[in-house]
């Protein structure tokens, strides 16, 4: 079923406020409206357990819980929530670790709005 940007719930996870603001504004430009934010993996996991998100967009490098650990926790809880990692960690072992943990797509920083939309489309289908 195609996703509706007007009603879809997106969670943005990043410890940098600037990054959360940038991604939020890009999502709004794409057409999404319901955007929540978390400052680290632990806070995000709490939100994910309480609300059904259509997509999680997460950084990797965060404390006390990294984006990778957040992803592992989500998958360990049998949640198939679509998950896109957006991070500066770009080495092969990072990609493999994220893929093995169940990531749906991976965006390396810096990125453009076009890349973000393209990867979201790849994960969610056209919108």
């Amino acid at each position: 079923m195609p996703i509706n940007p007007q009603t879809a719930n997106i969670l943005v996870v990043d410890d940098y406020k600037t990054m959360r603001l940038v991604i939020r504004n890009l999502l709004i430009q794409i057409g999404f409206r319901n955007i929540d934010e978390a400052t680290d993996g632990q806070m995000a996991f709490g939100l994910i357990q309480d609300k059904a998100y259509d997509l999680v967009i997460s950084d990797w490098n965060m404390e006390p819980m990294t984006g990778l650990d957040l992803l592992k926790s989500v998958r360990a809880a049998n949640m198939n929530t679509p998950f896109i990692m957006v991070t500066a960690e770009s080495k092969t072992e990072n990609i493999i670790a994220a893929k093995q943990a169940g990531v749906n797509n991976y965006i390396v920083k810096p990125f453009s709005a076009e890349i973000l939309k393209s990867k979201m489309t790849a994960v969610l289908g056209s919108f």
Partner: protein
Amino acid sequence: MPGESYRRDQVVSIINSVISKISQPQEHSVDIIRQEIANLKDMLEDLRSQLSMTDVRNVHAEHIPSATDELDAVAGATEAATMTIMDACEKILQAQQAGAGDDAIEGEVTRIYEACTFQDITGQRIGKVVRTLKTIDEKIHALLRTIGDIAGEDRLPPAPANNDSLLNGPSSVQQGGLSQDEIDRLLGSF
């Protein structure tokens, strides 16, 4: 004794003792002199071993170049982002003056948002430099303690937290980082 740590004053004391005995051989047995020289040899071997363990060679070969590379990247990223933002602002003003539609302005606003992501990456690069400086500081402290300038005190800073070995921060292609296209191909291969 091998493996024992020696203070500088102990080393000086033994050297002076050996010199004193050698200069007055008639007053000391050869065995005693031989034993003191053997003790001195053990101390020097131990000192050499401790010095090699501080492994300061990679400070010059690895840590300093790595830190300067990161700072160069920070300067470059900041400059590029600033240029992008200023260019976008200029185009917005031109679009307004020309009465251009919202699409033109929105496109430039998007470019500004994209450019602002530099702050996250430069922050991580600076974090890497700070960690490098801390590593260099630890090695210097270890070296100074080994050669006895810091006597009797353990003033080494605490060891860094055991970070996830995967957390390396921004990596340029030269540093083994993958481009977005390479990442897409790798994901597609699973």
